[in-house]
C-alpha cells in the first residue's frame, strides 16, 4: 500500500455501484483507498477522453494449483503460443519471464490480468489436500488479489452427513475446512459424479445414486445450499452442474437451478443469491447427439431471468487451442475418448478428483461454433446484468486473456457477424442457434456490471471490489475508449481492454500503456468462520485422519507463512 495520493482527472467514469454511466468526474486515491478528495500535491493522471472503471473481478478461473500445473507440465507445446518475450526494459524493471498461453506461468497470469485491469481473481477449484500447493502458487502470482474455493460436492464427510440429512454437521465441517485450507467458499463440482468416478462411473441425473455413499446429486446440492446459508458465508454455493458438455443437458440444468427455489439467503455481506451456477454455456445444450446438437440458451436464460436467487457466469468459448481441466474427473475421461489427445487423471483421497485434456475449439467444426454462439446468447438474453458474469471458465472454454475479445463480440453485432460469416458450416450453425437474430449490443455500463459490480456483489465483497465509491479499494483501470464517441471499428474495443492505458492496484500504478511497472501489493483473500465447537464433527475428523488419510491431521492446515498477505473476511455463526 502506497500512501501517495493520486487523482485521475477528467475521464468518463463507468461505475454501476453508483449508477455512473460515463459521468465526467475525478477519482481521488489515498492510502490504497478511493477517497473524496486529495491534496494539491497528488499525482495527476489525465484520463480525458478515456473510460475509467473499477478493477475487474473474475468470479471463476483455474489459475493456481495441482491441475493447472499438470497442464503446464504436460503441454510444453503451449509455450510456443506464449506471445510475449521479456523486453530489456521489463528485465530492468525486475519483471519475471512469462510463459504459456492457455496455462500461463504464475507470473504471466498476474501480469496479464493486470494488463487487462483486473484486480481480483477467484481460483475456482481447490482440492483441500493440495491447498498448500495452491497457496504457494498464489504467492508467486504477482499484483492480483486472489481467493480459492475448496471443493465439497464429492467430499466423503459431506456426503456422509447429507445422506443422514445433517445440515448442521455439514456446516461445521465446511467451517473447519475453510479455516484450515484458507478457502473462500463452497464449490461443488459434478455432485456425486466425481465420487462415482472412483468406480469409473458418473452421475448424470439429479437422482442417480452415488455408489457406496448412497446419496444423490439432488441431496448434495440442496444440502450444500442450506449449509452455506446456515453459515452465512460471503459467497453462495458455487456449482458446476452434473452432465456437463453433453447434448440435451439443458433440462437437467434448469431442474438443478430450481433447487435454489425456497432457500433463503442469510448473510451480512450484501449477497442476494443462494446459488452461483458456473460456466452455463457448457450446460445449455439441446439435441440428442452431436448431429442435432443445438443451443438452448434462450430456455435456460428464461429461467435464470425469473429467479433472483441465482447468479451465473457464461463460460464463453473463444475458438482457441486450449487446455481443459476440472474436478469433473469422469467428464475429462469422456472428452479424451472424443478427441484422443493426452489425458491426465488424479483421484484425491476422500475428497475429489481431477482431469486434464488439451482441446482445440476449431472454427471449422460445427459443434465448436455452436458452443461459441451459446456463450454469447446467454449474455445477450440476460435481463439483469448484475447477475451474469463474463468468464471463459479459464482455461476450459478459452484463456482469460480472451475476455477483451468476448467483450468485443458482446458489444458489436458487426464483430459477431464477421465471425459467423467465417464459419465453414455457417448455415448449420445458424440452424442450431439464434445468435444471428439478436441485435442487442451491450453497453460499457453493462460490461462493467458483468465484470465488476456484479461478481463483486456475488462474492459478498461489494464494499471492497467492483466499484469506485470512497472507502473501496483503489483498484482503477483506465481504458483508451471514448465513452461519448465509441469507435466504429470493434477491434479497437478489444485492443483497449487487452492493454489498459493505466491500471492502479491498491493505490499504486502497476501498469502504464500495457507495460507492467511493479509487482504490486497482492493479497490472498479467505474466509474465517467463528462458530461453537461441534464435538461430533471434531471426533469424525480426528478419527478419519487417524484411519484413512495418508496425511496426519497436524500437517493438514495451511500454515500462515504460506499466505503472507492475508485479507480475511470473518464470519460469526451463533449457536
Amino acid at each position, binding site marked *: 500500500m502506497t500512501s501517495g495520493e493520486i487523482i485521475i482527472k477528467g475521464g468518463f467514469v463507468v461505475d454501476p455501484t453508483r449508477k455512473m454511466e460515463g459521468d465526467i468526474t475525478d477519482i481521488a486515491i489515498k492510502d490504497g483507498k478511493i477517497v473524496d478528495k486529495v491534496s494539491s500535491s497528488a499525482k495527476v493522471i489525465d484520463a480525458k477522453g478515456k473510460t475509467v472503471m473499477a478493477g475487474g473481478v473474475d468470479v471463476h478461473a483455474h489459475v493456481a494449483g495441482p491441475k493447472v500445473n499438470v497442464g503446464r507440465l504436460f503441454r510444453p507445446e503451449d*509455450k510456443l503460443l506464449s506471445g510475449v518475450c521479456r523486453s530489456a526494459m521489463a*528485465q530492468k524493471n525486475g519483471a*519475471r519471464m512469462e510463459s504459456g498461453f492457455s496455462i500461463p506461468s504464475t507470473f504471466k497470469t498476474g501480469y496479464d490480468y493486470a494488463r487487462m485491469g483486473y484486480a481480483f481473481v477467484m481460483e475456482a477449484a481447490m482440492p483441500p489436500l493440495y491447498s498448500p500447493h495452491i497457496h504457494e502458487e498464489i504467492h508467486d502470482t504477482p499484483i492480483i488479489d486472489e481467493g480459492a474455493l475448496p471443493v465439497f460436492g464429492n467430499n466423503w464427510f459431506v456426503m456422509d452427513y447429507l445422506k443422514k440429512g445433517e445440515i448442521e454437521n455439514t456446516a461445521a465441517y465446511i467451517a473447519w475446512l475453510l479455516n484450515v485450507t484458507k478457502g473462500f467458499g463452497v464449490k461443488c463440482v459434478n455432485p456425486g459424479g466425481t465420487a462415482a468416478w472412483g468406480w469409473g462411473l458418473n452421475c448424470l441425473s439429479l437422482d442417480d445414486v452415488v455408489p457406496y455413499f448412497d446419496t444423490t446429486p439432488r441431496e448434495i446440492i440442496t444440502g450444500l445450499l442450506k449449509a452455506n446459508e446456515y453459515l452465512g458465508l460471503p459467497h453462495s454455493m458455487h456449482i458446476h452442474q452434473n452432465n456437463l458438455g453433453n447434448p440435451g443437458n439443458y433440462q437437467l440444468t434448469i431442474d438443478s437451478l430450481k433447487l435454489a427455489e425456497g432457500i433463503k439467503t442469510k448473510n451480512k455481506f450484501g449477497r442476494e443469491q443462494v446459488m452461483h451456477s458456473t460456466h452455463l454455456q457448457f450446460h445449455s445444450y439441446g439435441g440428442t447427439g452431436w448431429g442435432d446438437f443445438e443451443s438452448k440458451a434462450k430456455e435456460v436464460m428464461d429461467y435464470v431471468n425469473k429467479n433472483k436467487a441465482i447468479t451465473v457466469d457464461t463460460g464463453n468459448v473463444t475458438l482457441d487451442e486450449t487446455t481443459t481441466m476440472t474436478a469433473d474427473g469422469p467428464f475429462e475421461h469422456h472428452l479424451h475418448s472424443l478427441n484422443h489427445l493426452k489425458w491426465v487423471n488424479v483421484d484425491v483421497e476422500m475428497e475429489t478428483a481431477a482431469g486434464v485434456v488439451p482441446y482445440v475449439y476449431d472454427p471449422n467444426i460445427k459443434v465448436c461454433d455452436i458452443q461459441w454462439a451459446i456463450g454469447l446468447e446467454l449474455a445477450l438474453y440476460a435481463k439483469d446484468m448484475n447477475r451474469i458474469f463474463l468468464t471463459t471458465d479459464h482455461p476450459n472454454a478459452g484463456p482469460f486473456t480472451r475476455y477483451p475479445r468476448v467483450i468485443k463480440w458482446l458489444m458489436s453485432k458487426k464483430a459477431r457477424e464477421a465471425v459467423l460469416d467465417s464459419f465453414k458450416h455457417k448455415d448449420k450453425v445458424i440452424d442450431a442457434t439464434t445468435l444471428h437474430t439478436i441485435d442487442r449490443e451491450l453497453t460499457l455500463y453493462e460490461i462493467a456490471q458483468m465484470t465488476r459490480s456484479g461478481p463483486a456483489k456475488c462474492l459478498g465483497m461489494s464494499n471492497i471490489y467492483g466499484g469506485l465509491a470512497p472507502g473501496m479499494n483503489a483498484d482503477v483501470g483506465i481504458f483508451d475508449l471514448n465513452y461519448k464517441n465509441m469507435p466504429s471499428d470493434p477491434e479497437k474495443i478489444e485492443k483497449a481492454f487487452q492493454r489498459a492505458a493505466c491500471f492502479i492496484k491498491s493505490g499504486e500504478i502497476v501498469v502504464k500503456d500495457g507495460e507492467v511497472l511493479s509487482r504490486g501489493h497482492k493479497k490472498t483473500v479467505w474466509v474465517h468462520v467463528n462458530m461453537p465447537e461441534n464435538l461430533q464433527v471434531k471426533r469424525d475428523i480426528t478419527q478419519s485422519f487417524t*484411519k484413512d488419510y495418508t496425511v496426519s491431521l497436524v500437517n493438514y492446515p495451511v500454515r500462515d507463512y504460506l499466505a503472507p498477505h492475508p485479507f480475511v473476511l470473518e464470519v460469526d455463526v451463533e449457536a
Partner: protein
Amino acid sequence: MHAHPRHTSRYSIFPRGFFTPKGQMQRTIISIDPRQTDTAKLADIHLMLNQGHDYELFDAFRTVLRGYDIPDEVAGIKKEVIVKSAEIMKKAKFCMIFFGMGCTHTDGHNHNIDAAISLTRDLNNHTKASIMAMRGHYNITGPGQVWSWQFGFPYCIDLSKGTHAHMNPGETSSIDLAMRDEVDCFVNVGTDAGAHFPIPAVKHLKKHPFITVDPNFCMASEISDLHIPVRIAGVDEPGVVYRMDNVPIQFRSVIKGLPGVPSDEELFDLVYERMCELTKTEPVWLAAKADRKYPQNPAVS
C-alpha cells in the same frame, strides 16, 4: 521394498484402506522384473521377463485387453500367464501401476512408459487405473512443481536467453551442457553430481569453478572448490516437500539448526542480493523472501 522402504507398508501393499480393510489380503500384486527381487517374492505373480523387453510385454497386455491373440510367448513370458495377468488387471476395482528406473533406463526408455501409459488408458475403459513414477531423491517432485508454475517446464530449463525459458532435454540438461563444455561455472545444489554424473561430464565441469551447496559431505563436495553447508528441510528447517504423488507435505523442523548455517532460501537470497549489488539493480524479489519469514515453531491450528 529396498528402493522405497516405506512404500509397501504405507502406501502400496500392506496398508488397510477404506475399501480394503484387510490390507494385503485384498490386493493382488504383480511384479514385473527380470530379477528375483524381494518385492517379486512378495508378489502373487512375478513376471520374470527377459531384460529389456518391457515394451513388448505392455504391448501384449494391450493386445489381449482389446481381444486379440498374441504369440505363445512374449518377452519370455508364457501366453497363459499374460492373459491371466491382463484379466486380473481388468477385473480389479482399482489398478495401480508403479514404475521405476528399471523401466525408463533400459532399451526403449520413454517408449516403454508410453506403452505402459497407453495400457493404463485402455484399462480405464474397463475399470479404474492409474500409473505413477517411483522417483528417487526425497523432494525431487518439489522443484518439478515450482519450476512448472514459474517457467512451465519441470527441468532442463535454459534461462540464458533472458527473454523466455527454453527446455529441450538432450540439449539443455546439465549433462548435455557439461559434455559440450558450455559451462564456465558449476553450482551443484542438493544432489551429488560427483556420484551421479558420467565421469567425462564431471571432468569438463572440473575445469571451471565447482561449487556444492549441500548439508553433507558427498563425492561432489569432495572435489568442489567451495562447499557451502545448509540446513535440511524437515530436520532443522521447516518447509513444503512434495510427495511422490504431488501431495504437498508441510514439514516442521525437529531440531534447532547449527548457528551460522543458513537455509537454502537464506543462502540464495544472500547470493541474489550480492548479485544485484554488483549489477547495480534493485533486488525486488528479495521482498518475496522477507515476508515469508519462517516462524521458529509454526503454529498448528
